[in-house]
C-alpha cells in the first residue's frame, strides 16, 4: 500500500500500535474518512480521547463516600445522580441520565451492557476490558451468581440479585455497601475504599484503607 490519499511527495507508514487489531484499523479508516470529508477535525478526536482518559473512578468514589456519610445526599443521588454529581462539582458527562442504585444487605445490583459497552465513563473513567468482553456480557445476564463468585463476591442465597443491562440511554452507578468498621473514617478515607469494581457491582467496597 503506497500513499493514503493525501498530498505528500513521499511514502510513509501510518502511525499505529504495531500489530493493529481489525477494530483499530477500522476506527482509523473511519477517522481518516471523517477528517478528509471535514465532518470532524483531528483536534476533536484528540480532545475526546483526552477527556475520556482524564476521567477516573475517583469521581464516582466521591459521590459514594458522600452518600455514606450524608443520608440526605444519598437520597438526592438516588433520585438524580446527574444533579448530585454537579452538586459536588463533578462532571457527569454527556450521558443524559445517570441512575444510582444502592446495594444493601438484602439487594445486590451488578451492571452490564449486553449490547456493547455502555458505562458511566464520566464518573468511572474508561471501562475495564473485561466489561467489554463477550463472556462478561453474556454470562452476567444468564448466570450472574457464577460471575460474581469469579470476582470474589459470595452472595447469600436470600440476597435479591438484580442485573442491570444498560441497553439504552441510562448509565448505572452502584453505591456499594459501606464496610463494617469504617465508622471512624473521614469522607476522604472512605472514598479510598470505593473501588471501580464495587461501583459496577462485581466487588464489594474495600474493607480497609489501601496504603
Amino acid at each position, binding site marked *: 500500500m503506497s500513499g493514503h490519499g493525501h498530498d505528500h511527495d513521499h511514502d510513509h507508514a501510518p502511525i499505529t500500535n504495531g500489530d493493529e487489531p481489525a477494530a483499530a484499523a477500522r476506527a482509523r479508516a473511519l477517522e481518516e474518512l471523517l477528517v478528509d470529508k471535514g465532518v470532524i477535525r483531528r483536534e476533536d478526536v484528540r480532545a475526546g480521547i483526552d477527556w475520556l482518559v482524564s476521567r477516573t473512578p475517583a469521581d464516582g468514589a466521591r459521590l459514594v463516600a458522600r452518600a455514606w456519610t450524608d443520608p440526605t445526599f444519598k437520597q438526592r443521588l438516588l433520585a438524580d445522580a446527574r444533579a448530585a454529581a454537579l452538586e459536588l462539582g463533578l462532571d457527569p458527562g454527556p450521558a443524559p441520565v445517570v441512575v444510582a442504585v444502592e446495594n444493601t444487605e438484602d439487594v445486590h445490583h451488578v451492571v452490564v451492557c449486553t449490547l456493547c459497552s455502555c458505562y458511566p465513563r464520566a464518573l468511572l473513567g474508561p471501562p475495564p476490558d473485561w466489561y467489554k468482553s463477550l463472556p462478561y456480557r453474556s454470562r452476567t*445476564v444468564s448466570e450472574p451468581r457464577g460471575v460474581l463468585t469469579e470476582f470474589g463476591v459470595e452472595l447469600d442465597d436470600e440476597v435479591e440479585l*438484580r*442485573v442491570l443491562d444498560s*441497553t439504552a440511554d441510562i448509565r448505572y452507578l452502584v453505591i456499594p455497601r459501606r464496610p463494617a468498621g469504617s465508622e471512624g473514617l473521614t469522607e476522604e478515607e472512605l472514598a479510598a475504599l470505593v473501588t471501580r469494581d464495587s461501583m459496577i457491582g462485581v466487588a464489594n467496597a474495600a474493607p480497609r484503607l489501601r496504603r
Partner: protein
Amino acid sequence: MTYRVGQRVRVAARHHAGHHRTPGYCKGKTGRIERVHGQFTNPETRAYGGDGLPELRLYSVGFGDGDHRVYADIFEHWLERAP
C-alpha cells in the same frame, strides 16, 4: 400506549434488521415495568443520521423470578400489554 410501574408487558418478538437496543434474550419475554426513565430520542433512526424524533418513552423492564432478575431498558414501541 404508555405504561405504569407494576404493569406486566411483553417485549415484541419481531426481527429488526437495523440498529436497535432491544436485546435478543428478552424478545418475546414477559416482564414488569420497574421504572419510567422518561423520553429519549429513537436510536433506530439516530443510528442512520436521523434526528431520532419523535422521542420515545423508555422503561426499565424486569424479567425473571428465580435466582436473579434482569432489568433491561426497553423503548415503548417494543412493548405490549401482557395479562
